[in-house]
């Protein structure tokens, strides 16, 4: 088997929750034992409490070289998996399959074209993983959220982080990411990565195209 193919071999594993913390109301950072899982920043896994019988895909929040495997999970009303995961206690077992996906189609390098990351809510997770892995990148993270408290770990991104807050004052910009982008002059050769809800991705795509960014430079990952 060639090394390239070997890299993408996925694993099914039982892991344990090490720590959990509520990073904003109803949103939790869950840190699991990574064991020997290898992944690429931007990838996701399926995750469920052990023996639960239902799983969901979650983007990995931690970096490629971090000692633990972490996720940010927002409990969704009626969301059986998110509720069950955030109810886990340290030491509890979880099932994990993956990693999957190739959202970051190109391995980031310092000299590459600038990166524009646009996320809503927990859609910032893959970008956190990328930036944790490649902290020297030339990027801007545009984060659409409802409240100031949802600026998850924003200090991690320094001056590259722009929060667009829609339901209260505060953060970098008051309004949605689309409002920000309408007033924003993008760098035409930027590679744009969009992650979050479908409506945001649809609208942001239109705005970026209207501003002259080629469709070949826009990459999307929808959170269903």
């Amino acid at each position, binding site marked *: *088997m*060639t090394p390239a*193919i070997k890299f993408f*071999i*996925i*694993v*099914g594993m039982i892991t344990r929750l090490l720590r959990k913390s509520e990073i904003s109301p109803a949103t939790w950072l869950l840190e699991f034992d990574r064991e020997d899982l290898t992944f690429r920043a931007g990838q996701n896994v*399926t995750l*469920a409490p052990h023996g639960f*019988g*239902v*799983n*969901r*895909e979650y983007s990995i929040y931690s970096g490629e070289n971090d000692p633990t495997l972490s996720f940010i999970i927002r409990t*969704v*009303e*009626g*969301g*059986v*998996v998110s509720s069950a995961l955030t109810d886990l206690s340290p030491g509890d077992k979880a*099932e994990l*399959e*993956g990693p*999957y*996906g*190739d959202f970051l*189609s190109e391995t980031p390098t310092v000299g590459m074209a600038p990166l524009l990351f646009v996320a809503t809510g927990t859609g910032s997770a893959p970008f956190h993983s990328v930036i944790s892995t490649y902290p020297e990148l030339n990027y801007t993270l545009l984060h659409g959220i409802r409240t100031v408290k949802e600026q998850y770990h924003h200090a991690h991104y320094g001056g590259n982080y722009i929060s667009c807050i829609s339901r209260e004052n505060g953060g970098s910009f008051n309004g949605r990411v689309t409002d920000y982008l309408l007033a924003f002059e993008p760098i035409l050769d930027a590679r744009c990565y969009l992650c979050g809800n*479908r409506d945001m*991705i*649809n609208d942001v*795509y239109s705005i970026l*195209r209207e501003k002259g960014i*080629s*469709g*070949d430079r*826009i990459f*999307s*990952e*929808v959170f*269903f």
Partner: protein
Amino acid sequence: MRIAISYPPIVNEDGQKAMVSQNRNVQFFKTPTYLLPVIQAQAATWLRDLGHTVYWDDGNSQLKNYDQWFNDLIQFNPELVVFESTTPVMTFYWHCIDELKRKHPSVIVVLTGYHSMRRPQESLENSTADIVLTSNHIDFIVPKLAAAIENDPENWKNTIDVEGLYIRQSEGSIHNTGHFRQVEDLDKSPIVDRDLVDWKRYAYENGNFLQTPGTYASSVIRDCTFGKCTFCRYNGGDMTFSQMSVERSLDEYEKLINNYGVREIFDDSGVWFRGKEARAFAQGIIDRGLHKKGCYFGFNTRFEYLDEETIKLLAKANFRFILIGLEACDDETLQRLKKGYTVASVHKSLAWMTRYGLHPHLTVMVGYYWQTREMLDKTVTTVRDLMFKGLARTLQVTICTPLDYTLYHQECISEKVLLTDNYDDHDMSKLIVKTPIPHDEYYEAIRKMYMIGFHPLFIFRQLIFLMKFRKRDWQFLFIYGWRAIRRIRNHIFNLTKNQGSEIL
């Protein structure tokens, strides 16, 4: 414009028809299932709404032979013809397109479908096709293409501003208009006009329907929510991630039941709604009283997607047929296929479904290039166990065939296990990859799994189901059962006819 959405009849030397449509894996059958290709049907509806003259040209469902189909198409005098491609019919299509262009040189031929999407230049080099769509959003792109041609008939190839196209230029070069928009708002695409596509032609010959007339709904998810399985075409950079709203889909169901008298509706989305959308849809069916209209509902899903409460609500809303991929029964294969579930979860998911009266239908595959005898035996044993226990009601078994340059297809090429470079051989009638055990053992496994349907223990289980006095269980045994005998014989013939003639 005069636009034909065309499916030519493709008949093999055994007199079987290729079932091209709805992005499915093509198989040849004597007694075919006619599937309504819903995205093309939405495209046809949208084009008609925009004022184009649309010819719904499905030569298969219209029971035409090739010459009849071809002559009728020429008679229509199309300006634009749209075909759907997939690997095993590519050489046929290239010849067909060339013949069409010879007879009718001014026609613009558009190839859609996953094979040409992933190898657009190949089709432009091997045929006289004019355009290849690299997006599965045919309904969104073809109307824009038609408008561009109408607006600038002389120079549209140079002025067109529609992404997702490979276009043959006048001087012979190929122009790529760039990556297409992946996420579209499916609520903007019209619901299929059933009369335009002559829906009744697809309403009866379909094993997914326990009651007829049945029909396929406009898919609520375009491609697949999961989108990671390596053998499936709904995977990779051309995934479209689009979803229709629950209310809009409910509106269509209501119309199908009340205006057309449909008695079974199937949504062929790669994976249907899950979680809150699934519950909202089921509740919407109940709130509108559609669960009491004698119509069953069904969809594709995957293991570990639906929880017990959701399943219970779906059953209450009169859902019945749940098509679910059980591609293998060993965890190594499931992991290599990136299925995202484990064998351990299979029993639990199926038990929830059968507890509330749903009819799970397993889609099993054999013949992976790594599949050992032990893995194969495990699949047969587990499937038999599930069927005997009543945890699944029906099944289909296919040979895993590398198609449409999926990840599995590319892996077979890079691992040098593909035994043929002839696209015609990808018709799922035989194994075309090197395997660790003789091909005949996989054919025998297929036979064993189909024969489960005739086993006394399976029949006994169906009789036990009758004691629950659910109408669907009685229908299953006394209506579907008789139909199934014919279909099982058909399937066994198709999938084992190459037994004893291994290609090496």
